[in-house]
C-alpha cells in the first residue's frame, strides 16, 4: 500500500534563504513521485517529477528534489526563496503495474515567505 507523509504542515522562511519541504513515502512497487504547487484559488501545477531516471530532479522556478530510495524520501529544495513561492505544496506518489493510475497526495505543506 502506498502512503505519503509531509513532515511539516507549515514552513516559514525569509526571502532569499533556502527552502526545504520534506516528503517521505511508502510504496509496494517502484513509484513515480511528483511535487505539485497550489497557489490560492488556483489549480495544481506540476513542479517536477521522478520516474526512475536521474535521482536528482530539476523542476520549474528553481526547485529541485532528490529521490533517496534508502530513506524513502523525496524532499523538495530551492536555494533562495522568492515571495512568489508562497503557496501550498503537495508531494504525490503514483504507482501501478501498468498505468500509474493509483495516485496518493500528501497532506500538503504551506510555505510562507517573509520579506
Amino acid at each position, binding site marked *: 500500500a502506498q502512503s505519503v507523509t509531509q513532515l511539516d504542515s507549515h514552513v516559514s522562511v525569509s526571502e532569499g534563504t533556502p527552502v526545504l519541504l520534506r516528503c517521505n513515502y511508502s510504496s509496494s512497487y517502484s513509484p513515480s513521485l511528483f511535487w505539485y504547487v497550489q497557489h490560492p484559488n488556483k489549480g495544481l501545477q506540476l513542479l517536477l517529477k521522478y*520516474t526512475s531516471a536521474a535521482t536528482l530532479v530539476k523542476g520549474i522556478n528553481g526547485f529541485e528534489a532528490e529521490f533517496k530510495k534508502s530513506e524513502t524520501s523525496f524532499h523538495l529544495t530551492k536555494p533562495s526563496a522568492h515571495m512568489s513561492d508562497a503557496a501550498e505544496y503537495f508531494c504525490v506518489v503514483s504507482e501501478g503495474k501498468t498505468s500509474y493510475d493509483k495516485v496518493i*497526495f500528501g497532506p500538503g505543506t504551506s510555505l510562507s515567505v517573509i520579506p
Partner: protein
Amino acid sequence: EPEVTQTPSHQVTQMGQEVILRCVPISNHLYFYWYRQILGQKVEFLVSFYNNEISEKSEIFDDQFSVERPDGSNFTLKIRSTKLEDSAMYFCASRGGSAGQPQHFGDGTRLSIL
C-alpha cells in the same frame, strides 16, 4: 501550452439536486481523473477513466457519482443527489499515454451545497 479547463468555476446547488461538473482535458491525452479537496483537507482521488471506462475508483466514489466522456472532448462528473458533505473543490486532471507522464490539472470547480 495546452491546459485542462473546468466549468463552472463555482457551482451552488441545493441539497438533493443533481450536479454536473465539466472538464475539457488536453486534447491528445488518454487518461482522465477526478479529485476532490474538502476545505482545509488533503486532495483525494475519486476516479480514473481510460478507454471509455473507469479504471480505478476510490471508496468515496459511490453510486451517487458517475463519470462520462460524452463526445470525445468533454469529461464530466455527475453527482446524482448532492449532500452537504459533497461541498468541496473538484479537480479534473488528464495525462498522456506514456508511462510516468504527470497528470495535468484544471483550476477546479468549487461546489457549494446549501
